């Protein structure tokens, strides 16, 4: 008895140690997608007294604590659903050179002609200037100044660019409306696609090979802003890359994002108390990919997988699927033509589908008339008749 217990104990200990060892070593990449749909944010602010600034500071705490866990850890931040910018990478920022180009393409060429040393010097000066500028901007918003450099870079860049984007949004919107471009589509799938291709490069590079990654979506808008096919495509890509998609849901619930987190082994949390967002972000949404197999995820398991009809937009239990374009219909189209792909449907088959179950008169009579053509017998109704 002792021997058995002993062996089991030793085995367990050894295993646990191995796991611990692996856990300790591997850094991971945390990608956050922040939904900044202005209309939804307005609603949230009115109803919950939640300010965007609070969310940003909670987010910064989350990013900083991820960086603090391991020196090899990396973070990146995308915005999505902005009316003017669409989806965009905010951190790490790569667009220094783009700004150069747009400001003065001529000066850039001159720099290229000069020797590399001078070029470096010029670049350095430009960088310094820019960072000083950034510092001025950021220090207006950030209260503390004596922080770890790594954190400081992240905080400054993010606060700065978010500030810029939000400030520009109203005027940009006005100019858009003036041009008559009012159709605006959701861009969460764009941010997801960008994040996934960034992760793909990360995981395939020699430097960071085998690095785990996960995506956290802080989403405020509902399903009506999500383009179905592209969201689904990104979910499947994430599944293939073994990237889990966590969803932190403010505002209306989203079925698509529930499905996204479910199929990628992620967490879906509906935030009931938005003021305590920081706690959600640093506990439930802070589970490292390495820990996922061992932790019971704080997610809901009752997910609505039912599809919605392409015509009526109602949720479908039993529907009809066009064999050509796979669109889901809740009713059989009257003109026998598929509404999305316009292919003609088989008339005989539709007649068969439309046929309603018939009720048999009585069991005794039914026995005599067995050979009559009544293929669809509904046993429940039959039973009730009796």
């Amino acid at each position, binding site marked *: 008895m002792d021997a058995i217990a002993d062996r089991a104990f030793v085995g367990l200990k050894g295993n646990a140690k191995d796991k611990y060892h692996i856990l300790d070593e591997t850094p991971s990449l945390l990608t956050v997608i922040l939904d900044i749909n202005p209309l939804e944010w307005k609603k949230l602010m009115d109803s919950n007294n939640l300010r965007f600034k609070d969310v940003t500071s909670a987010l910064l705490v989350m990013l900083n604590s991820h960086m603090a866990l391991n020196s090899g850890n990396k973070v990146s931040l995308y915005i999505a659903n902005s009316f003017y910018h669409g989806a965009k990478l905010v951190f790490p920022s790569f667009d220094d050179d783009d700004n150069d*180009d747009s400001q003065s393409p001529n000066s850039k060429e001159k720099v290229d002609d000069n020797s590399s040393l001078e070029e470096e010097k010029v670049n350095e000066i430009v960088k310094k200037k820019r960072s000083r500028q950034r510092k001025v901007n950021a220090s207006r918003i950030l209260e503390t100044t004596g922080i770890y450099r790594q954190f400081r870079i992240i905080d400054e860049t993010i606060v700065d660019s978010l500030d810029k984007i939000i400030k520009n949004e109203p005027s940009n919107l006005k100019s858009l409306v003036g041009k008559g471009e009012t159709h605006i589509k959701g861009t969460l799938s764009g941010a997801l696609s960008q994040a996934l291709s960034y992760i793909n490069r990360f995981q395939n590079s020699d430097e960071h090979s085998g690095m785990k990654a996960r995506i956290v979506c802080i989403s405020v808008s509902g399903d009506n802003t999500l383009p179905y096919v592209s969201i689904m495509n990104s979910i499947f890509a994430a599944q293939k890359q073994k990237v889990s998609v966590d969803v932190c849901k403010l505002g209306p619930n989203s079925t698509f994002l529930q499905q996204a987190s479910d199929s990628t082994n992620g967490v879906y949390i509906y935030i009931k108390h938005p003021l305590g967002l920081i706690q959600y972000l640093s506990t439930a949404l802070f589970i490292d990919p390495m820990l996922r197999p061992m932790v019971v995820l704080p997610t809901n398991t009752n997910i609505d997988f039912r599809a919605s009809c392409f015509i009526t937009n109602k949720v479908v239990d039993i*529907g009809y699927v066009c*064999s050509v374009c*796979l669109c889901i219909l809740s009713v059989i189209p009257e003109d026998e033509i598929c509404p999305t792909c316009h292919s003609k449907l088989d008339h005989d088959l539709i007649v068969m589908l439309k046929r309603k179950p018939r009720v048999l008169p009585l069991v005794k009579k039914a026995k005599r008339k067995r050979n009559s053509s009544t293929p669809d017998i509904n046993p429940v109704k039959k039973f009730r008749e009796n």
Partner: protein
Amino acid sequence: MPLDPEEENIVTPAGRHRSKERASIINDDENEQDYLDSTDKYDNSQHIETSRNSNEGNDDHDAPEQLKGNNGGYSWEDEYRRSWDIVQEDESGSLETIVSGLVESQKKRYLKDTTPFQRGIIRVNVLVLDYSKVMREKDLRPNRAAMMISYAIDFVNEFFDQNPISQLSVVIMRNGLAQIVSEVSGNPHDHIEALKKLKKTDPEGDPSLQNALEMSRGLLLHVPSHCTREVLIIFGALFTSDPGNIHSTIQGLVQEKISVRVIGLTARVAICDELCRLTNHGDLKSSYNVILNEQHFKELFMDAVTPLAITKTESQNKRGFSLVKMGFPQRVSEQSPSFCACHSRLVYGGYICPNCKSKVCVLPTVCPCCNLTLILSTHLARSYHHLFPLTLFVEVPISSSYPTNTCFGCHVRFPKGVEPSWRATDSHKRKKEIQSSSRYRCTLCGCDFCIDCDVFIHEVLHNCPGCESRSRNHKLSASIQLTSKDLIDSEKNRIHIHNINS
């Protein structure tokens, strides 16, 4: 070139240059074979191009116009090009641009046809594996049978990943008989388990094509009309020992509208030729192929994952397309386990059929109670990219400056533009062809991507990050839009890269 030892010691600019050249020879020796291989194929395309514009070039040789090669000599002389000729410095003395160009040309771009076709998405496929004694042959490592099975397992995984509402069955040809390895089912685990078990048995006896085809016909007999009926045969032998007339079997297959695809491991066989031609409306090119090497074997196997396009005659003959009744069940989680209707096992949670309220444990499946097809909407969504494929990106032609500096997807830095004066010089002609702009542009949103992202986006992601990131229907600005001439240029370039790789 014969080098004098004394001359080598002289430190003149020329001497230095020469010794540098020598160093590159030594470095390149090990890669030389690769270069020669690639340049060899490269030459074929080159030859065609030069013969087309044969008016150009210097006429110091007497070679007839058509046979003229790149350097003015005969084209076959070009075959013996030294690899170190390709590697040359750019004007700043760096090898970086040329090396990155070479590295990039090794990577294979995604160049499949992206015309949206109507496809038979709901498929029933019978995978027929040759398991006769010829499969013991060791021309594929460790032997044909082992490699075939490991690829078959990959195929099953990929097949169900991309065609979740389809079904598969596995049959082997062994001892002159056809034996079922796994029945028609939509669950990948059944097939993979069966294939793993098959690994332990040895290939034996002769293959019988007729028996295998008859058995596939039997398996596909009950398949409803909205599904496609397909057979994929991996055929290693060059013969078949049949009990009867195989030609009548083929006629039977044609009547049943079963399309047969064959991957040959040895050589083309006349009977397979006939089989594929008759069952695929004469389209032999995509249906019957013989492998060149392991890589090609894998590619051919994976080609069968993409659903077949419906041919014109097929769609005309039909009276109309069918509408399939399907149930979208809801998932439930339970505190205590209950029996599922499909396997009669105790399980926690599952899916409730909306029609008859019985519980099933895995999807997609057919409800064992009421015979309704049960799927999740996500399963349907998996097949969408076959129906609405993403358009190919075009390669941006080389120029002195580009509107973008980093890849839109992964933000890797692109190489800088090339000065036009340097590009135009004749001596750098070869280099110019190796070089590329490294940018691949989506024609709809005008965003540039690197080659890695291009491949990833078309093979895995299936939507363009650029198009999805625009909040408005973006119109291309004039500066970004490619002219039609540019498009044609890059088209040429693409074909050329393809030639190098294939």
